């Protein structure tokens, strides 16, 4: 069966996926370094090693993401829109709305029955509503991103952050901590603020069930649950693979479509 690969070089993390036919056989996620070309090489080597295949066995490979122009070894490059839609549909075949939150951006797409993209919106201009917002807040709260995500569950009365701007919200958080609010209530407030910003982007494309969430923030249960409440829809999180891999999976699928001549 044909072996294809996808590589998604993001601003904070880079991902690679190797597939044999319809099956994921190798994956890797690493933190992006200063040189995207080196990062791409390193993450792909890791995924190939895990798959136990040699690069010359890869029929086709597709690159995507923020650093796509710098990926030297791929046979084609494709937009994040195309790759994320394919990846999300592979991981959650019933998905009609895909919300992807990356380290420095947030994307929402509405798909038709066949997975074609009907509408797409992205924010990469403002840190609010991106992974960076949570990173900044986790740092002030002196928590890991994982710990921050879990706080919503134990919070009793989550605070409301008045400001959308990450810089002003940071001041709100410090003020709440100084006035004696618990870390759990402040952390839950942070997750809620994040969800509310993402919800407005998702509503901009029109939310249709099933809603699937990909990207690193999909692992934050606090944000996912808050977003479910705001959108009034259940959110499906990919189980077949790490939600952060969606773009790279989509790229590997696109590589197969290219090889088969269907694209």
């Amino acid at each position, binding site marked *: 069966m044909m072996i294809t690969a996808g590589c998604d070089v993001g601003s904070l993390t880079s991902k690679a996926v190797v597939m044999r036919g319809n099956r994921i056989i190798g994956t890797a996620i690493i933190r992006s370094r*200063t040189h995207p070309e080196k990062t791409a090489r390193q993450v792909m080597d890791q995924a190939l090693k895990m798959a136990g295949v040699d690069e010359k066995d890869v029929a086709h490979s597709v690159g995507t993401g923020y650093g796509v122009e710098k990926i030297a070894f791929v046979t084609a490059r494709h937009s994040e829109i195309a790759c994320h839609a394919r990846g999300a549909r592979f991981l959650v075949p019933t998905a009609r709305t895909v919300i992807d939150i990356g380290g*420095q951006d947030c994307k929402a797409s509405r798909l038709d029955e066949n997975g074609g993209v009907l509408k797409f919106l992205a924010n990469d*201009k*403002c*840190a609010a509503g991106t992974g*960076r917002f949570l990173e*900044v807040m986790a740092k002030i709260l002196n928590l890991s991103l994982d710990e921050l995500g879990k706080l919503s569950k134990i919070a009793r009365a989550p605070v409301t952050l008045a*400001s*959308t*701007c*990450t*810089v*002003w919200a940071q001041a709100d958080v410090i003020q709440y901590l100084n006035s004696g609010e618990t870390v759990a209530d402040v952390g839950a407030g942070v997750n809620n603020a994040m969800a509310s910003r993402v919800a407005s982007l998702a509503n901009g494309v029109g939310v249709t069930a099933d809603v699937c969430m990909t990207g690193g923030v999909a692992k934050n249960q606090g944000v996912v649950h808050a977003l479910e409440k705001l959108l009034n829809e259940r959110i499906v999180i990919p189980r077949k693979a790490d939600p952060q891999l969606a773009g790279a999976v989509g790229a590997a699928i696109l590589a197969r479509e290219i090889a088969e001549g269907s694209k």
Partner: protein
Amino acid sequence: MIVLGVDVGSLTAKAVCMKDGKILSQALIRAVTRPSESARQVIAQTLSAAGLSLEDVAYSVGTGYGRKQIPDVTETESEITCHGRGAFYANPGVRTVVDIGGQDAKALRLDADGNVERYSYNDKCASGTGRFLEVMADALDVPLDKLGELSATSSRAVRISNQCVVFAETEVITLVNQGAEPADIVRGLHHALANRVAALAKSVGVTPSVAFSGGVAKNAGVVLALSEALGCELVPLDGVDPQFCGALGAALIAMDRAGEKAA
């Protein structure tokens, strides 16, 4: 007759004391946590400099971010009205006022009598406010009040592509690591801030003469960049410290009200 104008901002508090239409004294302090305490301190300093006490004051007007919490003032007035009034007093040819404070930016257009015709305001996004420069000065390890001098030594501005404070901070750190000259970066930052605020000013319609007030107006680099972005010269506020524009306007309004009351 003695009147007092008090402007309690997010970072600094300012007060101006006037007697029979002339400025007797003024003071500026760094704001403390409670606006009421900032107000008390700055009022005490201003009156003591003039050798007066609170009982000597016939009328007082409070303005600024913390105006609702100023004790001992006769009444409060919006920042827009006070800034317009202060700038028009300093230079009656002024038709447009651009004010950049520590946590906001305002643009207002005045008619020939100094009344506010239109205004626009940003306090939602830290980009385009004094905070933008504060964060960048910190990242570059340059004192805030030295940014203007530093940018004057630059021969070529570095283009800053991010608008968001959080993203631009990362960009600045990357630029430093890549070996860009701090002076060139600062000049680029001044342009970035000026372009953002110029967009705000253009939304009210820029009519000459244009005056620039607020703490950031003391940065010669931003003055130059804003003048370029607006495509017109910025006129000086005769004999008035740009940071005192709001407090002065408040004192002038206090004078009017005291006069109305006496009549």
